[in-house]
């Protein structure tokens, strides 16, 4: 007697698989509202996707603090922070479109796949209508693409690679943070003014996307001012001891070392370079110099006294004296007891900008939000008059050139502002070669 192919277990398995298959892509299924995760109750849920574990966990913790502060201010709690200085007065401190702001958090782990998984979970399970945060360009590009498919808005956190709003730009994604090109454009004139136009530069570059775009930006900006690039060496992202890369620098005839490194890479390469006494040397009749194109306070803290006198660029700094920065520093400092980092600032501003765009659009519908943000000009958020350019969804604003402070008064007082580079000097055409190869496409409402 032969058994039939149809078994009870087989039926159950097939049923389970089919059920799961139908249930999982909820954001792809049609909704009455016409867009993904349209808020129906009295609350709206935002998804804060930040590194809560891994090497950038401290930066992620600061981002989360900023988001929590933004939610407080949006809901009318606390002192209102930058809502008081923001040029747009659409937000009333009663949530967004009258709905109380709620939030969920995800852990990007600074890994693209983990970041996508946490963003997906917040969209599908928690009903997040917007995803924001992150401390890596790799993560930003990956999550931005996911949000585009899912039909939600992505307001990136700290991401500096040209590609985020260049070849990997997406209609549903927006970046407030500055980028590699802007760092190069802001830094080069300051470097030329301080170190002269006759310099030989040696680049050490982290072997991944952000490293490449930063190297390219700094190289082209400094070469345009007369510097010569002696060598550009890629270093593995996993490298911890850079001695074998730094030791040959002096032999190359270079008199300037440019460290296109971020995070732990930067802390270690700078520490190693200072250990090797590069800064005490004279080459080509000039004092040897080191440059770090992208600074963050947390990195400066990790590198300790080694950052003293070293030039770099940053998106924002808590010592800025405009009304917006002062309001934010006061709110953040009062709540947490220390000043915010640039990562905290960009995340806070992104949350407010999203909320404001929804309020002005009168809808949470992603395409309406995109329309409200494109070409939006604002002020009072800490960087002077700012434009969210429609062509690439990149914010254009002043950029800070900073230097490691010689006599810091506290562990937060590590950088001093050398120059506020005006926005015109860091603005580029949307079709600039460093940003070529991408297109925004059309916005996606998801449903």
């Amino acid at each position, binding site marked *: 007697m032969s058994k039939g192919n149809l078994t009870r277990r087989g039926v159950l398995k097939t049923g389970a698989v089919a059920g799961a298959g139908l249930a999982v892509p909820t954001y792809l299924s049609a909704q009455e509202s016409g867009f993904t995760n349209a808020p129906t109750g009295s609350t709206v849920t935002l998804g804060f996707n930040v590194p809560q*574990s*891994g*090497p*950038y*966990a*401290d930066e992620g913790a600061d981002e989360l603090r900023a988001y929590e502060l933004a939610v407080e201010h949006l809901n009318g709690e606390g002192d209102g922070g930058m809502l008081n200085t923001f040029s747009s007065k659409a937000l009333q401190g009663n949530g967004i479109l009258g709905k109380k702001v709620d939030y969920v958090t995800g852990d990007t782990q600074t890994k693209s796949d983990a970041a996508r998984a946490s963003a997906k979970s917040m969209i599908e399970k928690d009903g997040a209508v917007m995803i924001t945060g992150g401390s890596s360009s790799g993560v930003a590009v990956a999550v931005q693409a996911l949000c585009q498919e899912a039909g939600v808005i992505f307001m990136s956190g700290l991401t500096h690679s040209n590609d985020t709003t260049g070849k990997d730009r997406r209609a549903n994604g927006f970046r407030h943070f500055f980028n590699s090109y802007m760092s190069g454009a802001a830094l080069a004139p300051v470097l030329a003014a301080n170190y002269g136009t006759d310099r030989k530069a040696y680049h050490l570059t982290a072997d991944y996307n952000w490293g490449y775009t930063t190297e390219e930006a700094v190289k082209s900006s400094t070469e345009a001012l007369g510097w010569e690039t002696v*060598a550009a*060496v*890629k270093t*593995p992202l*996993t490298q*911890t*001891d850079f*001695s*074998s*890369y730094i*030791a*040959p620098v*002096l*032999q*190359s005839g270079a008199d300037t070392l440019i460290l296109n490194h971020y995070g*732990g890479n930067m*802390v*270690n390469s700078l*520490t*190693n370079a200072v*250990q*090797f*006494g590069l800064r*005490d*040397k004279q*080459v080509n009749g000039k004092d040897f110099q080191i440059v770090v194109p992208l600074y963050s306070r*947390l990195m400066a*803290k*990790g*590198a*300790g*006294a*080694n950052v003293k006198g070293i030039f770099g660029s940053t998106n924002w700094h*808590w*010592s800025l004296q405009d009304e917006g920065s002062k309001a934010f*520093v*006061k709110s953040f*400092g*009062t709540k947490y007891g220390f*000043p915010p980092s640039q990562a905290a600032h960009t995340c806070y501003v992104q949350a407010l900008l999203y909320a404001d765009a929804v309020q002005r659009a009168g809808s949470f519908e992603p395409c309406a939000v995109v329309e409200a943000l494109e070409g939006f000009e604002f002020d009072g958020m800490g960087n002077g008059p700012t434009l969210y350019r429609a062509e690439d969804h990149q914010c254009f604003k002043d950029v800070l050139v900073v230097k490691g402070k010689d006599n810091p*008064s*506290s562990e*937060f*007082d590590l950088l001093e502002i050398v120059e506020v580079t005006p926005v015109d000097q860091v603005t580029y055409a949307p079709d600039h070669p460093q940003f070529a190869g991408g297109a925004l496409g059309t916005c996606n409402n998801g449903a």
Partner: protein
Amino acid sequence: MDAIILQILNGLDKGSAYALIALGLTLIFGTLGVVNFAHGALFMIGAFCAVTLSRLLSLSHEVAVPGEVDFLGNPAMRDQPYAYDIFGEAWGAHIIDWAVPLSILFAIPVMILIGVIMERGLIKHFYKRPHADQILVTFGLAIVLQEIIKYYYGANPIPTPAPEAFTGSFDFGALIGFEANTIIYPYWRLVYFAFAAIVIGAVFAFLQFTTFGMVVRAGMADRETVGLLGINIDKRFTIMFGLAAAVAGLAGVMYTPINSPNYHMGMDFLVLSFVVVVVGGMGSLPGAVLAGFLLGILESFASMREVINIIPGINQVIIYLVAIVILLTRPRGLMGRKGVMED
């Protein structure tokens, strides 16, 4: 020629760290037969002993700075270390400056204690289990330890500088007749290399010239017979685990000025150290040391721009390539003994 000397020097300090970690790994494997994947975490904990002592010595109270305000506009406060109050400002500053070398004294008992607790509390239950079980449990332990460190110290690297007297670099090229600035080498890395040589020498001397060491060596060769002679070999092996933990810890303490320590630094060294052990020959102490220095130097050579230009990416795979070649030609590693891990 100068480039070659430079890379040999660079390889020495990296090789020192590999050799110290691999020495501890081999001690544990040789005595207890345990493949300890938590050994990198012991290196990391050693580094955090230096961070901890540095923080303890720098413990401060706030004093007002007249006429200045903080970022919120309140009267500014400045941290004043208690060490200044107790020893005076000059001596207090010296003590804080020498925190890393002083941490050696702090780390030895702490690391031995952690090693003994680890062995008695967890690892002894896995002696008779397959190596795969040992690897899983020790790897899990390493993750737990690093997460504990991250919880208390954060994920950011913590600067732990060398004493002022050892900052800067030494112009080795000028000393041997090359042009100035062609071969420079940081003073602290020289200290690290010398320190590693002393620790390695001390461990070998301890095993070679003491009765305790003799019994341990006998136990490594034939545990059963030593046991039958009425010697409590388990107790001695537990102490050896503590000693191996101390060696890894000391390697970590002295490494802190080279790279700011973070919770993940142990993992960065662990895999390479295992390769070092395998290349040196499982269970061979001299093999571990030899392979440590050899691979450290080779890794430095592979990072030369001229080499990378010819073979891109070689710097990331050189150690594994060499390991493959050595294991193909000498399956027991450079100095491996017959019968180890071959049952």
